Structure formats: C-alpha cells, structure tokens
C-alpha cells in the first residue's frame, strides 16, 4: 500500500501549462468558445473526445471544462464555457492575447474506435452539448467508419443552442441527421418546441447495433434514459459523461467521487451499465 516517497524532484501536477487565449467567440448569450494555444511546444498533449482540462483565470482560480476540439486537427485547445460562477466570469472577461493556463488532459474518453460500424445517436442538452462536439467532429471526419448518425441537440431557447453555426455542416454527409429542439421558441424559430426525451420517443431510433451518447443536465439525462430503455436500448449501449465538483482532476481532493469511483479519473465517461453498479446515486 505505502509507496516510498522518492528523492527525485517530482513535477508539481498543480502547475498548469502556460497558454494564450487566441480567440473568444460568443456561442450563446452566456456561453463562449475559447481557443487556447500552449506557449511552449514541449507542453503539447494528445487528447481524445470526452476528456477535459482545467483552465486558469489567474487571480481567481481554475475550473474543469470538456475539451471541445479534436487533437488531430491541431486547431488549438477549445473549450465552451458557460458563465455561471467566479472563474467562468473571469474567463469570459479575458480578451484574445490574455495569458492563461491549462492543466490536462484528464479523465477517460468515448471509445469511438469501439463504436465503428455502429449507428450513433448523439443527444445533448444546453451546455451539455459541448463535450459531444469532438465526438461529432471525429465521427464526421471518419464518416465511412460509422453507420447512421442522429444528432439531437436541445436547449431552453433558440439562442441557447450551442454550435448553431455548425449544424448545416453536420447535416451534409449522407446518413446523417441533425434534429434541433427547444423548450420555448421565439419569433424566428420554425423548428420543434419540445423536450428532448419526447423528441427522442417521436424519432424512435432503433437500438439495433446502436450506441446512444448523452450529455446534459441531470433531469434531462434521467428522462432521456427512460425513453432509451423504452426503445429497447440496453444499459451498455448508453454512454454519458458525468459532471462532478472537482478541484484537482488527479483523484486526490476526493470531491467528485461517486462511491469509490472518481469522476475525474475513472470517468467522466461511463456507460449506464457501469453507473447502475455505482453504490451511490448520482
């Protein structure tokens, strides 16, 4: 059990890689998409869809955010950040050129290679859609590896739909559908006004050779899960990424645990087969 503390200098895992904010774009009224470049080439890291990193607003603190970009495109590290607290407020005030820091990548990822040949259903609600964007990018960049793809994106209102400018591109490839829905429309909205679980029931995707990837607020996940099960999806066919309060990302601060599992290290990506084995309700 006890490991010998070694004499060699151990790098401090709390020190982030210095980075510069290169662009900051409004996605919705309270969500911005940040693009960061690491300052030192030797810090460059590889990462997979579903992983996350901590972004620092020096002087305020740091917070964990899902990586919204894909590593192989080398377009910088992207994070979609909703303004909800002190750190995200501070990040929203940064101008391009500002110095920041990145610590990561942390956590596991969506095993997209294992999903090859399968039909994919991607369901995201609100800011919960952010960690799904690299999943979509990866699948569409390797379109022929996957079967039918259904993307279902919902939000409270049309102006809360994340990545709206990319929907058209996502719908271009064959056998790919993008469905949008909002809880409440506005004057310019011609689309659906319905809750995600209801839209899902209406679309009725087949569970055969399919994987459903969902992310969103707890209440949405709860009801979406019920609908997927009604459609015949098994627990192991449903994958989600959990959100937990985190401070370290290293499995040390014991804040994001669900039972003996850490969201930061054992997750954040879990199948519902795994979640149903958790001792603690989440």
């Amino acid at each position, binding site marked *: *059990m*006890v*490991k010998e*503390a*070694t*004499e060699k*200098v*151990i*790098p*401090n*895992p*709390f*020190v*982030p890689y*210095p980075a510069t904010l290169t662009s900051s774009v409004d996605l919705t009224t309270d969500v911005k998409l940040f693009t960061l470049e690491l300052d030192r080439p030797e810090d460059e890291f590889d990462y997979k869809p579903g992983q996350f990193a901590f972004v*620092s*607003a*020096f*002087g*305020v*603190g*740091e*917070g964990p955010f899902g990586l919204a970009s894909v590593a192989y495109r080398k377009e910088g590290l992207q994070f979609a950040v*909703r303004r*909800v*607290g002190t750190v*995200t407020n501070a990040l929203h005030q940064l101008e391009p*050129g500002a*110095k920041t*820091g990145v610590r990561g990548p942390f956590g596991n990822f969506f095993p997209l290679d294992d999903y090859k040949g399968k039909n994919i259903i991607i369901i995201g609600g609100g800011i919960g859609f952010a960690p799904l964007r690299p999943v979509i990018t990866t699948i569409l960049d390797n379109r022929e590896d996957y079967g039918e793809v259904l993307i279902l994106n919902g939000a409270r209102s049309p102006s809360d739909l994340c990545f709206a400018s990319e929907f058209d591109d996502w719908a271009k490839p064959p056998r790919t559908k993008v469905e949008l829905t909002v809880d409440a429309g506005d004057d310019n909205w011609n689309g659906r006004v319905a809750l995600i679980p209801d839209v899902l029931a209406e679309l009725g995707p087949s569970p055969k050779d399919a994987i459903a990837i969902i992310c969103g*607020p*707890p209440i949405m996940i709860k009801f979406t899960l019920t609908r997927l099960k009604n459609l015949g999806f098994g627990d192991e066919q449903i994958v989600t990424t959990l*959100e*937990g*309060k985190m*401070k*370290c990302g*290293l*499995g*040390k*601060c*014991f*804040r*994001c*645990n*669900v*039972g*003996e599992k850490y969201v930061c290290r054992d997750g954040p990506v879990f199948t519902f087969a795994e979640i149903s084995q958790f*001792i*603690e*309700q*989440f």
Partner: protein
Amino acid sequence: MTKILGKTGLESWLHNIMQERALVAPKHVGDLILFDPVQSVDEVVFDYENTNLSPKEFFFPRTDTLFTTKSQDNDVELIPTIIDQETVIFGIRPCDARGIAMLDGPYLDDPADSLWAQHRNKTTMIGLSCTKPAPQCFCTSVGSAPNDSSSVDIMLTEVDDGYAVEAVTEKGERLLQGVELKESDVTLSAPSCDTSVPAEGIVETVKKVFDSPYWSRLADRCIHCNVCAYVCPTCYCFDIRDRTDKGKIERIRTWESCQSKGFTRIAGGHDPRADKGSRLRQRFCHKLLYFPQQFGPLSCVGCGRCVVSCPVNIDIREIISDLQELGAKVG
C-alpha cells in the same frame, strides 16, 4: 538487546537536532497540547495522551501555496513551491504516523502530489509509543498497536531509565548517527488498547447497509461542523483557489471537509449530496469502504480525536458497532 537513550541524552539529542533542522514537538499552546515548532527543549511536552490536533498539518498544511505567478511583459511565469526546510517531528504517536503513511496512498499515487512528497522527504518522524492509551483510543481495533513502529523513522519507548530506541528506517539511522546508546536487556511491555471495536469485516458490512435510513437518522444529530475532519489524521480533502496580494498571485489549497454544505455543489446548482445524511455517509464510507477499496486499510487509525472532539457525540466506534449489528440483520 535493547538500546537505551537516557533522559538527559534525549534532551541533548533534541537540542542538537534543533541546530540544523526545525523541531516540531508536542507543546502547550493555551490550554491545548499541539504539535508546534519548538525553539528549546524546555517547551517539549513528554507526557501527554494525544495532541488536540493531529500532526498532519506538517505534511498537509492548513494552507499551502501550490505555485506563485510572476507577470512580466505579458508573460506569466509559474513558480512551483519548493520545500527546503528539513523538519524532525518528535513524539509522534504510532496512530498519527500511520495516518500519515496511509495518505501516501492517494497523495503519491501517480501523478504524485509533489508538495506532499517533498514534505515526506524532508521530514523525519520520531515516534513515541503509548505506554497508557487514552480511553477513547482504539488503534488495536483497526490494525495497529500502541507500540506499532511501522510508520515512523525512529521509535522510542519509555522505560525506567530513559527511552528504548529503535531505528526503523535509514532516515532514522542517519538521525541517530553519533548518538550514544546504552545496551540493556530490559523487555518492553506491550500495552493494550481497546480491541472491542468490531472493525473486522466492516468493508463488506458497509456495502450492505449503504442505503439504510441509519445514515439520515444519525445525521439528525450531526451539526456538520467539520471538527471531525479537521482533527482527523487521515482526512485529506482540500479546496483550491487563487489569492492576489499586491499584484502577486498565488494558487493555494486549504483544508476542507466533505461535511460542509455545498462541498459537492456544481456551478449549475446540482448537488449530489445536498442532504445531511448523504454527507455524513460520505465521511464514514470514505473511511470504511472507499479507502479500503482503493488502498487496502481502513482510513481510520483509532486515535480517538473525533470521538472526543465531536460536539454531539458522533462516535465512530459506536457507528461501526451499529453497522455490524445492522448488517447482521440484513444478512
């Protein structure tokens, strides 16, 4: 043969240690006895049951600077904290030392916490075995003993004409270099400590009673004051935030407790442990279930601090008994 260090010999040894290193020892602070840096041997308390706070703060300080930043010409330099100070802790009890060694589990797990590792490297622990355990102590019930030398560098045991000395680690041997020890054939008594806490098999039991209403009934009484966590040698939750002082930014971490409201509340407002019962369960399940699952031993060393310090008598020994009884009923 046992090696003996006389009482005056011990004092001069401690005095010598103090010349080159920081010496931390039990000391009177107000009406408490706490581990604290001492400037002279006179301040050291040799006869005490257990200190009011555990010595974990010399490895996991109440407040620690993770790194500081220096800004210049729109360039930010991040400077990690380096710990230079060599420290010797004298008089650490076997239970407390075991608690610290136990935290190597999470803290040195890859990627290692460099501050913890540095504190561990720079600190030598001189243990003092318990000749008369206090009524709240139950180290023997949780896999240790009043003379357990497994987690210290040097173990001292009080005998008639001084202290029996055992160098446990190389670090300990180095510290003892040049210290004159007498040979003696005295046999060391093995004091006993409360063995009645039914901790055996508790891991399996906790799994069975996890969803019991027991927790929320117990939490009726709990005032979620965090005292248990702060006095505990094995509680290691922390908070991290930045601090700005006259342009200097430091990222600091401080003690925090899973008992505080909002500990798990995420920015959007959702809190998986919003009710008192699930917060209280978290603390005991961490000690009795999660930690054993992750690292082996129960993360309770039986020091009894929470037992004495809890203002509303939430007693881990009683809880372990209750759970075993409850588990037996569940079958």
